């Protein structure tokens, strides 16, 4: 998990996936390098969630490849993808409601050796101090913001190479959302992980991203650095309907 390598860590090539009846994403390619934040934005129904699910194994792609470095993850079940070092935070049902906060974290650390767990829990509560004050509370009793912190803390336990975050700020108040993005999400990348984040709040997530994909109608409409996207009129257009498809370039570190 080196912070300075420009080798792409997680690569998805030409993914087609759906939930049975038909494909929702039709040939999407994204990649995210360690130490960077790549975001996926786009109007609703564009397939952003489906893309993440295809990457972490919850949905099996009908075609395309997913690899982490040299390792081929295509078609692996979620537990094997997790074991390969990919952490996934779903948008809903993101915690074990009947378990306590501590037990949720312990489940996050399921793959750790027993003696390491306590230390990791301390590290995670260092990142999310609020969690440290409510270790014995049942997760179902937490507020929205606290649940999201727990959901991210759960994934943090394994310190995975890749974080897949599905709209972590959904249902959060704007300032809490802002803190989550600028504080915690950015921090994950600073620590060396590759972070792929799907978001509805395009402006806010562009502000913390190194590279952004715009998804529409199940395809990548645009892909570029936030700076260039913000300056481009096609960017706002793409939120209002199908726009021109731009070939992707690999992420560049500035």
């Amino acid at each position: 998990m080196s912070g300075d390598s420009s080798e792409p860590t997680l690569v998805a090539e030409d993914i087609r996936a759906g939930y049975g009846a038909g494909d929702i994403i039709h040939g999407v390619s994204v990649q995210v390098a360690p130490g960077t934040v790549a975001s996926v934005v786009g109007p609703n129904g564009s397939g952003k969630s489906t893309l993440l699910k295809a990457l972490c194994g919850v949905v099996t792609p009908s075609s395309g490849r997913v690899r982490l470095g040299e390792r081929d993850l295509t078609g692996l079940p979620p537990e094997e993808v997790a074991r390969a070092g990919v952490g996934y935070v779903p948008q809903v049902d993101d915690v074990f409601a009947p378990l306590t906060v501590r037990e949720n974290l312990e489940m996050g650390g399921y793959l750790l050796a027993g003696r390491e767990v306590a230390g990791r829990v301390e590290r995670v509560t260092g990142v999310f101090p609020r969690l440290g004050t409510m270790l014995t509370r049942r997760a179902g009793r937490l507020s929205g913001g606290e649940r999201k912190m727990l959901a991210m803390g759960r994934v943090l336990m394994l310190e995975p190479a890749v974080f897949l975050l599905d709209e972590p700020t959904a249902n959060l108040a704007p300032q809490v959302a802002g803190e989550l993005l600028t504080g915690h999400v950015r921090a994950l990348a600073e620590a060396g992980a590759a972070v792929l984040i799907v978001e509805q709040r395009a402006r806010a997530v562009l502000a913390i991203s190194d590279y952004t994909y715009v998804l529409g109608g199940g395809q990548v409409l645009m892909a570029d650095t936030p700076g260039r996207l913000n300056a481009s009129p096609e960017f706002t257009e793409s939120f209002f309907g199908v726009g021109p498809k731009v070939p992707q370039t690999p992420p560049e570190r500035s």
Partner: protein
Amino acid sequence: MTTAQLYYLLNLLIYAGVDIIACLGLSQQFGVAGVTNFGFIIFQAAGAYTAAILSLPGDSANGGFQSYIGGWNLPFPVPWIGAAIVGGLIALPFTFLVGRRLRGDFAAVGLLVTAVMFNLLVTNYRPFLNGSAGLSLVPAPLQGEYDPQGAGYQWAYAAIALVLAAGAFWLVQRVTESPYGRSLRAMRDNDIVADSLGKNLVALRTSVLVLGGALAGLSGAILVSYITTWSPGAWGYAETIVLFAAVIIGGGGSHRGAVLGAILVPVGFEEATRYIPTFGPPGFVDDLQWVAIGLLVVIFLWFRPQGILPERRRIIGATAPSFKIPNEDVVTLAGPVRAPRAAEAPNPGRPATAPASRANTADPVVLRAVDLVRDFGGVHAVAGVSIEVRRGTLTGLIGPNGAGKSTLLAMLAGTLPVTSGHVVYQGTDVTGRPAYRRARLGLVRTFQLASEFKRLTVMENLLSAVPDNRGDSLAGALRGRRYWRRDEEAAIARARALLERFGLSGYADTYGGDLSGGQRRLTEIMRALMTEPAMLLLDEPMAGVHPRLARQIGAQLLDLCAEGMTILMVEHELAIMDEFCDPVIMMAEGTVLATGTMTDLRARADVVEAYLVG
């Protein structure tokens, strides 16, 4: 044929009659309506006990060795009629178990427990029905005038049993091949959607329990009057499993399947084992028989869950009517000989719906939201929205995710109660009214998720949406086709016109479950139009639809508006909004941000920004 063989054959025929009637009752509940009544045996037992105590003399007779209630020595056929009535009435207390709140498998377990409980109560409370010993010396019908052991009597008994079985078949066919039967099947396929179409689930399930219960009671009466004894041992839950096995193997949902199952399982199977030479210790062959029934149930549910004679597709066709055993996939509902281009079908140029007749032409505003607010645990999903929808417009409702569009739509439709504010439809405040009441006033919504009935054809899906069909109740169905034919034919004509308008005439007889995504959307819209609404609330009708089909749908919607319909449509496909919708209302964070054409909205920086802020 020797006398012994003759008696044996008659014996078989009588059991066949009894089991056919019982299986038909169960098929009506389980196969047609989807009510898994594991307590079915109680109804048969209730009928048997009723017939027994009505026909027995007072319990001091015969030396007083039995103790039971009743004992009025009533003549045939009163005990049998009483049995059917009691079998039906016993169903009423079960209403609480079949309401909507309980999962299907939980309710089934509850019914099973009830069966066991009643068996225990009857076994232990001797004064009621003579406890575990049961009732015996039950008089055979007319045993004063005829000799029950005589061949003539046995023939007559078998004939009566079979005639009643045929009558039961006729009855359940009549009930199932009616609008009421269609509603039962819709409820079986998707009870939540059936509920939203205004079907009263509790009433439907209760009525089916009553009908099946009455049939079960009658079967009990025929049985007890023949074997002249009845005890709790005869009705454990093992007996219910045999009947379920019969219906599953024969074919659930198809009454012919139930008849076949009755002949194969309780009769055929149990009789076949008679011919296997007894081997092994006593009871061994009986045990193997039970094992075989268990195996058959599991095997059939795995390999052929629809049974040997599965439910047939109902094709609303143009051949001769009603009770004749169909030899093809054609069962008629539309009545006698008519070509599909019926005289009543409107000319293609005329509109299929007549919304103008329902409209209050004085007021150009059809729907008004006044300061609507909806809270979810402290979060304002909708924070004070006031909009007006004018007649004849295709109004769009857009906004980023979480803006509150679906919540607003749900409050307008009545599927979600408001926290505060008013919904005014055609001048009437409808704020407190549930969705199906608003639907009757002409304000109808569609749903985002797949909501077609999978095992009903497209035509049946459309017909199921009509609220005021006279045949849509048990009483109406019992009165027969003549009673509801006119309503049904009017609905069929309307459905055909809609199918033609939307280009799906060729799919009228396709099962809802076999449609493509776009076809499902169209069916959803057509179904909403069946009620002849004045205003439609569409929830993402183009979601997942191919762009070309989406444009066709859009064009159809515009045509409807040109004919006087008013439509409010939530949609994410902004290209559609561009082409078809005027005005477009844009929401963000629970309030209305702007209203205008898409071009107007695109030009506004705050609208664009709202989408990007998310």
